[in-house]
Every structure is written in C-alpha cells, then in structure tokens.
C-alpha cells in the first residue's frame, strides 16, 4: 500500500454534511458516505486515505471546524 | 473650608459628575442642555477624561452602553427629543444591566415642541419609554445644589443596582444659577465590577460576555425574575421625597423639579394668608412615593402642579386610592401664551383658593 502522508478525522458531532471537504480536497480523498449523524446530516468519509497529503484544505474550508488533520512523520 | 461657586443647573451636573469620579461623557447638542455637554467638552480633556460628540443621541446612548460595559462611570445628557432617540439603547442597557447615568433636561413637547422649559415627559421617563417594561431610577432635582448632589447619588445607585439612573431636569433648573457647595457625598462601599469587559489578559484569562438579550445567557423566565426582583428591591429601598408643612395641612400640593420650587413659595404665601397648605415633593419619580402620599390622604385635597398636560396626576390618584380629591394645574396656567411662559406662585394660590 503506498505510504499516505496524512489522515483526517471528521467529527460526527460537528459535521453538517455541507460537502465543502469533498468539493475542495485537491486529491478527492473525501466522499459523501451513506451514514447519517444524530442530527440527520449525511456524513462524508475519508475514503482514499493513500492520496492524502495533509494539506489541511478540508479543515480550513470546513465551517464547523469538524475536521482534524494529521501528518505522518517517519 | 467649604468651597462654594455660583453656577447653573447644567454646569452643576458637570461638577457633580467629576466629584462622582465620572471621566467619560458621550453627547450630542440639543437645547436646553448644551451648557452641560459643553462643560464636559471643556473640562474632561484637561483632566484626562474622555469627551466624545456623537452623530446622534442614538449613537451617544450606545457609546454609554459600551463604556458602561467596560466598567467605567459613563454618562450622557440630552433633552426630551434626544431622549426619545435613546429609548432602544436604554432598553438594551436595562437588559444588559449596565450601570450608567443619563441627564434629561425637559423642554416643550410633543414633537419638536419648544426649546424652553416644560415638564411633559413624566410618563415617558417613569413608565419605560422603550420596549420591555424595564425601570429607570429617576431623580428630579429642584435646585442647582441638587443637580450637583444627585449626579453623585445617581452614579452610586447605578453601580449599586447595575441599573440606569436618570436625572430629570428642565429648562428652568438647567439654566438658572444658584450658589452651591462643592462637596463629595459619602456612600456605602460598592463591589468591584469584575463582570466588566477589559480583555482576558486583565482578568487572569477569563473571558466575559455581556448581552442585551436573554437568548444566549439565561432562560427568559430567570431573566424576568432577576429584573423583577431588582425593581422590587429598588422600590422598597430607594423612595425619596420631601414633605413641606404637610403635618397640619388640609390642602397638599404635589410637584417636582421647578414646579416644586414654585409650589413651595405658594405654600409660604398661602400660610401667611392663613391657609393650611403643604407640599409633598417627589424626589425619586421612580420609585414613586405612593405610600408617603397615601399617608397624607385622610381629609385632604391634592393639587398636582406640573408644567404640561396631566401626567404625574395618574400616580397621585393611584397613591390616594380614591380617598382624596385630586386636582391638576398645568401648562395652560402659564403666565405667557408663548413658549417662554411659566406657572407663577400667585397663579397656584389662585387655584388653591378655588379648591380649598
């Protein structure tokens, strides 16, 4: 498996399913899942982990600050 | 060594504010209170105070809202028309429970009215004026000395109850000159304003939030209880009035501010002619002295002297609970048809003789 440089964690409590993370990820790592949050928002999922570069664009574009971005360090 | 000066009601307010430790004034020009605004424009910069002239009374009351929220003694002064522009801001000050002082020098109304004296704002200043059913403590000075003293009292009461206190003057009190004693009035100690906005660094990192709405701070019902209890406490503790020759009187004048000065002279003249007339002068228009008036009702008649249309008479009727006849002598009794007219003592006596 190719070594991904980073990973993101999406908070189900804060996410409102607006889809900006899906729209703005330059590597299309995030897609809309089929799971719904307690408030009924359709949650995105970090699908293509291997392409993530930990650029944090998803985090910055998230109105709810629901995304934490981590970078792997060897 | 007592320090005395000869000054006007408007400027006495300025001296009183300085003695009260107020160093922040935000105001807008309007007759007949301009000497008050001009006093602060002249004096505050000399003593490191802040004078800001705003673009409207709506702005100046909101500047007071901000300065009071930052924990300093702040005030504004205006006149009837301008006071009307402050109502929304005052209602927000009431909800946020911000201590501050407003001076309102009454002039003829309604509308643009006149620039000269009148007493036509009683209901506005005591029954709310703005939305929401809040209460302002209202002090009514009847002398230049009281203008000086009441500002110090006003700032004390404002801080004590975190409530707006209004000094209600009028064109006569504002512009007449009397010699006054400059003195610092003593009051009980007050708690620190640890709720004030200063920036987190000045409070050990704690953030504070002040709101003019219950939406974000507390359930509505709790908010109503807090305000309701406070107003009851003020009503129980802060009523002020003066009884003048009422002990043996069978005819009582009820008047505040400049009309009280005129009525006091009328009492003296009537007494010299053998009429048992007295005066009760409300000093706090809110909380209104209902009980002190009720205590005078048995077998007495009342004449409310108020330079305008019938307003305070409503509260006097409430106080007497129908046990006494209550009459009114108002603006139509002025000695001149034009805006410069006044109610003179002999006109009051003429009315007393008709009714006694």
């Amino acid at each position, binding site marked *: 498996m190719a070594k991904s440089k*980073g*990973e993101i964690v999406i908070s189900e*409590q*804060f996410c*409102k399913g*607006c*889809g*900006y993370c899906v729209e703005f990820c330059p590597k299309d790592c995030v897609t809309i899942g089929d799971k719904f949050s307690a408030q009924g*928002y359709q949650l995105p999922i970090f699908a293509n982990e291997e392409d993530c570069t*930990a650029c*944090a664009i998803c985090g*910055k*574009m998230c*109105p*709810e*600050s629901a*995304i*934490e*971005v*981590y*970078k*792997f*360090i*060897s | 060594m007592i320090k005395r000066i000869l000054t006007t009601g408007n400027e006495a307010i300025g001296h009183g504010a300085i003695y009260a430790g107020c160093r*922040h004034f*935000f105001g807008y020009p309007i007759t007949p209170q301009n000497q008050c605004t001009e006093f602060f424009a002249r004096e505050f910069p000399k003593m490191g105070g*802040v004078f*800001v002239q*705003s*673009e409207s009374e*709506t*702005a100046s009351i*909101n*500047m007071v*809202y*901000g*300065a009071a*929220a*930052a*924990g*300093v003694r*702040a005030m504004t002064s205006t006149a009837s028309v301008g006071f009307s522009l402050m109502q929304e*801001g005052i209602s*927000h000050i009431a909800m*946020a429970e911000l201590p501050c002082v407003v001076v309102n020098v009454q002039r003829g109304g309604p509308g643009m009215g006149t620039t000269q004296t009148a007493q036509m704002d009683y209901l506005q200043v005591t029954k709310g004026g703005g939305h929401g059913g809040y209460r302002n403590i209202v002090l009514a000075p009847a002398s230049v000395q009281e203008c000086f003293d009441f500002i110090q009292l006003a700032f004390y009461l404002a801080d004590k109850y975190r409530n707006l206190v209004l000094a209600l003057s009028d064109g006569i009190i504002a512009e007449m000159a009397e010699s006054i004693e400059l003195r610092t009035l003593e009051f009980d100690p007050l708690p620190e304003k640890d709720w004030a*906005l*200063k*920036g*987190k*660094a*000045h409070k050990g*990192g704690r*953030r*504070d*939030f*002040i*709101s*003019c*709405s219950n939406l*974000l701070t507390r359930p509505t019902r709790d908010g109503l209880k807090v305000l309701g209890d406070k107003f009851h406490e003020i009503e129980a503790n802060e009523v002020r009035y003066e009884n003048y020759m009422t002990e043996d009187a069978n005819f009582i004048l009820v008047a505040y501010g400049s009309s009280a000065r005129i009525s006091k002279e009328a009492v003296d003249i009537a007494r010299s002619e053998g009429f048992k007339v007295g005066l009760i002068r409300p000093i706090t228009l809110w909380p209104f002295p209902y009980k002190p008036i009720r205590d005078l009702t048995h077998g007495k008649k009342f004449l409310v002297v108020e330079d305008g249309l019938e307003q305070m008479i409503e509260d006097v009727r409430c106080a007497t609970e129908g046990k006494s006849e209550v009459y009114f002598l108002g603006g139509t009794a002025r000695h001149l048809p034009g805006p410069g007219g006044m109610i003179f003592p002999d006109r009051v006596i003429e009315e007393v003789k008709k009714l006694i």
Partner: protein
Amino acid sequence: MKEEERGKIKVYGRPRLKKALPLMYCPGCHYGIITSLIAEVIEEMGIEGDTIGVSSVGCTFITTQYFDLDFIDSAHGRSPAVATGIKHAHFGKPIVFTIQGDGDLAAIGMGCIINAINRFEKITTIFLNNANYGTTGGQLAPTTLLGQKTTTTPDGRDPKTAGFPIHIAEFLSNLKGVAYSARCAVNTPANYNRAKKALKNAFQKQIDGVGYSIVEFLSACPGSWKLTASEAMKRIAEDMIPEYPLGEFKNVERII
C-alpha cells in the same frame, strides 16, 4: 512485515479561540469559515488578551458565543458606537472590533459606521456581505444583487423600486479616517489565505493606531438563498464577485 512504526502530528484543527460548540449557522454558511479565520488571526497576532468583540444584530448576533474572547452584543446597527464607548473607556488600549452583517452595517447602521470612521476611531470592522437579511429569512438588503430574488423582492431586485447594490469597501475607503479597506471571500483556499492576510493588515492598523480598518467578506448564505451549500459556494464566484470585486481599496501607513 508490520508497517514501520510511524508517528503523526496534528497539523490542523479547530482554532484555539474558536470554542468547541456546534454552530447555530446553516450547513455551508461561510460565517463559520470566517469565524475560524478571525480566531486564527487574533491568536497568531497575540492580541487575544486585549481584544474585545462587538457583535451586532443578524446572524452575527451569535458569534459572541464562538470566540474565547471578551464579547458584547449590541443594538441593530450600533456596534461602531458601542465599540467607540469600549475603546475610549480604556483610553484606547484594547483592540476592539465589530462584526456586522450587511443589513446591520449598510442599512440601519450606515450613519453609525460613517461617523465612527469620520471621528477617526481606531476600530476594526469585519463586514459580512451575504446580500440579504439571512436571520429573518432572506429579505432585500442594501447589498442584494440586481435581479436577485428575495422574500421582499419576489420578482428580483429592480433598481426602479429597490435601488442599487452598495459597495461598502470602496465606499468607506473614501473617508479620510480609513487606514485599510479590503474585500475578501472564502470561496477558495487561495481566497481564504488572502483573506487571512487582509484581516491581519486590518488589525495591525488598529494596533499601530493608524486609523479605522474594514474587511468586507463576501459570504455564502445557503439557508436564505435557498440553495445547497455547493450552489451557494459557486454563487460567490459566479454572481457576487463580478458585482463586488475582491481586493484592497485602501492601505495607508499614516493618516495624520
């Protein structure tokens, strides 16, 4: 072979000064992104200890809850006056900013901000332009675009009856008291970064006492525009920016 042990560090998360609360904004509302920006800028500039925010009436009313800063809300359109009171209360020491929507600033509060600037107050205003009254369901605002349908211009804004969109950043930049005036957006990561620089410039003007500073944000309002988040985001580039060009309209080091 077990994958080689790899540590990871957090490179991005909720800004420290943006409190961990669910926001009361509609899904996709740009107020949330702008709130992050403000929180990041104030933290990075190291001024949180002396900063006091003044919110206004509209969707900005609730921003008071999302910042770990001293904050106060105020009457509709009056936050520049409230900010004046606060700023002078502490003799100019605190960093005071207002955060206002387009109805609040450009309609009911226009006289207030113009005079605050003309009095040469040293305050920063963050102006959120979403071209309608969002909180109350999407009525016409002074910044509503020509032809834009709102609940009070059901057939689209017609200048004959509802006048013209107003350009606040350019308009206020003509006042002598303004040291910095810019218009930004957060509809792309690049614009996000430019907006952050603009906000820092604006606060720096206040810190240096140069003059009044304004940053206008074009802000998507999916709720009251009655669009999905993605459509609202697209609308910023397609409809809003053509009417409201981004950029700096004034940036001076000294005024007097």
